[in-house]
């Protein structure tokens, strides 16, 4: 039997009388579709921004012309050259236009990380909520390859549906983006419109990314005839990670303390910021699960109540999972750090507020805030999806606890603590890392109230978003898990 035939078998419309059993699948499918829709809408919006900057930088508003003047429309090129020659501001802006494009590409690349994490978590959700079905299929003789392909296919279809809905979200966000000012002017529809080819490519790309991510994720999930288990006796993260982290941090500090971001040229500054963000993100991902393990171990030693004990033991059972659930905020925290410093540069750069350099610093601040908001939303959606998968995974054990007299409030507290502990750890770790690594570059910027308030505000916003996302998912998934089993099953 082909995978597609299997898939069709499980996706026949159920008669209305028999729909209660599919409620969990419906809800989690909806959650995954919403996640992909949010990611696609954000990605297209950022891509639209990139297109806008290319549109502005290119004399005839096309990419070939941007790359080579010989491929430009002659009339448009002449008009552009005339405008640049006639106005000093236009000339300055033209000289910085490529920087704007690099920054927009950078924002796109940054958002790819949380997007890939989101695709992986949606695939995990797809596997965890179908454990009974997948195990039964394996028991009936289906191969591991067949069930993996079936689940990956499901995930890809969810991504496809989500991406199509995300296009509507992109159009809905467009008027808001058009209110923003970059290069001292508002975006227009023509600038933000990425075109039908990019839309189709994005939809296909999102679907493909989900498919690949699902296949990679499912390689780590054991689907056996006796059940689906993501728990493979995970070893606790080794302390070598911490040693590597410390060495890299001290090395980075030594290198960075000999640089001054303010005095560097634009290209060098961008390169430093890029390496900083990627390096810091890699570093905190390296040490994150170890830090979460340390924190959970300390709290598990003498838990103050049953909820804390359950939560800490669940974290220790799979620290990587606990870390992954909230790791998206680590990147957001670092973006918040960069953004707050850029905003300070923007407000303090030179006396000429109309100079292209000052405008660019201001624009970097605005763009940073946008990227921060998008990264925060992606991290929140990702946490929500991962937490849902986690709650559904543990539904049976929690149901048993409820039968034995554990109150719903206790289980809610346990789930809350299970999210809050790693979340606090990642925020503290990322905040300290960004402050440490940025301090040598920006001098005493962090001692001034404006960037500090901006930094703390940005972190608080992302923190709240992730917390709300995870808690909403907690409640929804718990309700779904509870209502889909008959009381005496």
């Amino acid at each position, binding site marked *: 039997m082909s995978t597609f035939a299997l898939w069709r078998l499980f996706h026949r419309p159920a008669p209305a009388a028999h729909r209660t059993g599919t409620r969990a699948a419906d809800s989690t499918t909806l959650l995954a579709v919403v996640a992909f829709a949010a990611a696609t809408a954000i990605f297209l919006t950022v891509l639209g921004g990139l297109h806008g900057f290319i549109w502005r930088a290119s004399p005839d508003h096309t990419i070939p012309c941007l790359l080579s003047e010989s491929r430009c429309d002659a009339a448009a090129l002449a008009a552009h050259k005339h405008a640049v020659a006639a106005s000093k501001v236009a000339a300055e802006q033209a000289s910085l236009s490529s920087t704007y494009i690099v920054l927009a590409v950078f924002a796109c690349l940054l958002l790819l990380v949380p997007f890939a994490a989101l695709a992986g978590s949606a695939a995990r959700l797809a596997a965890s909520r179908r454990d009974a079905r997948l195990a039964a299929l394996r028991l009936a003789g289906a191969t591991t390859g067949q069930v993996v392909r079936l689940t990956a296919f499901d995930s890809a279809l969810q991504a496809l549906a989500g991406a199509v809905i995300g296009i509507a979200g992109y159009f809905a966000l467009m008027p808001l983006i058009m209110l923003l000012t970059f290069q001292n002017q508002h975006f227009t529809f023509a600038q933000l419109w990425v075109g039908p080819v990019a839309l189709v490519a994005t939809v296909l790309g999102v679907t493909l990314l989900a498919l690949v991510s699902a296949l990679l994720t499912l390689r780590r999930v054991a689907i056996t005839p006796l059940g689906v288990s993501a728990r493979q006796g995970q070893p606790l993260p080794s302390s070598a990670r911490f040693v590597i982290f410390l060495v890299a941090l001290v090395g980075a500090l030594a290198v960075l303390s000999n640089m001054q971001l303010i005095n560097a040229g634009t290209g060098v500054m961008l390169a430093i910021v890029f390496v900083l963000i990627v390096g810091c993100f890699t570093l905190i991902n390296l040490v994150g699960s170890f830090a979460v393990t340390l924190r959970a171990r300390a709290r598990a030693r003498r838990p103050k*109540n049953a909820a804390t004990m*359950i939560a800490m*033991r669940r974290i220790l059972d799979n620290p990587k999972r606990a870390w992954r659930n909230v790791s998206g905020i680590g990147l957001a925290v670092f973006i918040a750090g960069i953004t707050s410093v850029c905003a300070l540069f923007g407000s303090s750069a030179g006396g000429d507020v109309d100079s292209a350099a000052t405008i660019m610093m201001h624009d970097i601040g605005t763009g940073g805030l946008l990227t921060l908001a998008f990264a925060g939303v992606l991290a929140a959606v990702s946490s929500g999806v991962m937490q849902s998968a986690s709650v559904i995974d543990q539904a049976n*054990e929690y149901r*048993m606890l409820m*039968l*034995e*007299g*554990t109150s719903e409030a206790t289980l809610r507290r346990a789930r809350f603590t299970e999210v809050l502990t790693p979340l606090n750890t990642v925020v503290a770790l990322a905040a300290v890392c960004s402050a440490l690594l940025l301090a040598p570059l920006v001098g005493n910027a962090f001692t001034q109230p404006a960037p500090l308030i901006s930094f703390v505000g940005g972190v608080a916003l992302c923190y709240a978003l992730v917390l709300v996302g995870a808690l909403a998912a907690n409640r929804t998934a718990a309700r779904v898990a509870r209502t889909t089993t008959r009381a*005496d099953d």
Partner: protein
Amino acid sequence: MNNTAQPILTATGLTMDYAAQAAKPRTAQQPAPGAPGAPGAPGVPGAFAPHPLALNRVNFTLQPGETVAVMGPSGSGKSTLLHALAGIITPTAGTVQFRGADLAAMPDAERTALRRNAFGFVFQSGQLLPELPAVENIALPLMLGGMPYAQATSQAVLWLERFGLRALMAQRPGEMSGGQMQRVAIARALSVGPAVIFADEPTGALDQTTGHEVMRLLMDAARANNASVVLVTHDPNVAAYCSHTVHMRDGMITAAPRAVAVQPQSVPVQGGAR
């Protein structure tokens, strides 16, 4: 059954219609027997339900310290009866009284606390939290009752020692055999000093030898703690550990409680098989 003492648990006219439950929201208050909407009244389950009922006007009494086995084929309503008696599900009609208090009339929080403090549960499998070591699994209900961690784990260690499981203290369920897990589950059920232990096929996932060891442990511990036992099983050898057996078919108790002729098999004690 011996009816001279005050029963600890009484069920009257228990009726469970899952189709009807699914069609309406779950309510705590049930109509009084004989009142409109009660079983027997027109248009309610038990009177004209066109499908089989999970429980059909079941009456049940449990005395303090009494051990009762509930037997019957699959789908006969054994587990539903156990869940209704334990206040896990609210029956469509009928009442369950524990020490004179109507379970259905209690607020959910009170019923939850009752399950935690007065009842102990042993299921076929899967009731231990896989992330918790044995000692914390046993300490969990004590901590849920408000006991501090240090005190709860000390008591849990005592239970482990009593059951000869001290070596398993730091082991998690995935590292134990089925028999060991059931012993830990029994220790957990008994740790709160329950008045009634509800056991649903506690040996269903075990081999015969381990099953008998687990049953002996359960009944000895229940006797030592003066706890009553309601045991659901389809195995007459397991039922023989109880002082009484009731038989169920199609949601009804088919015969009056009677003494059981089968005696528990005597088997040599061995370690739990993996």
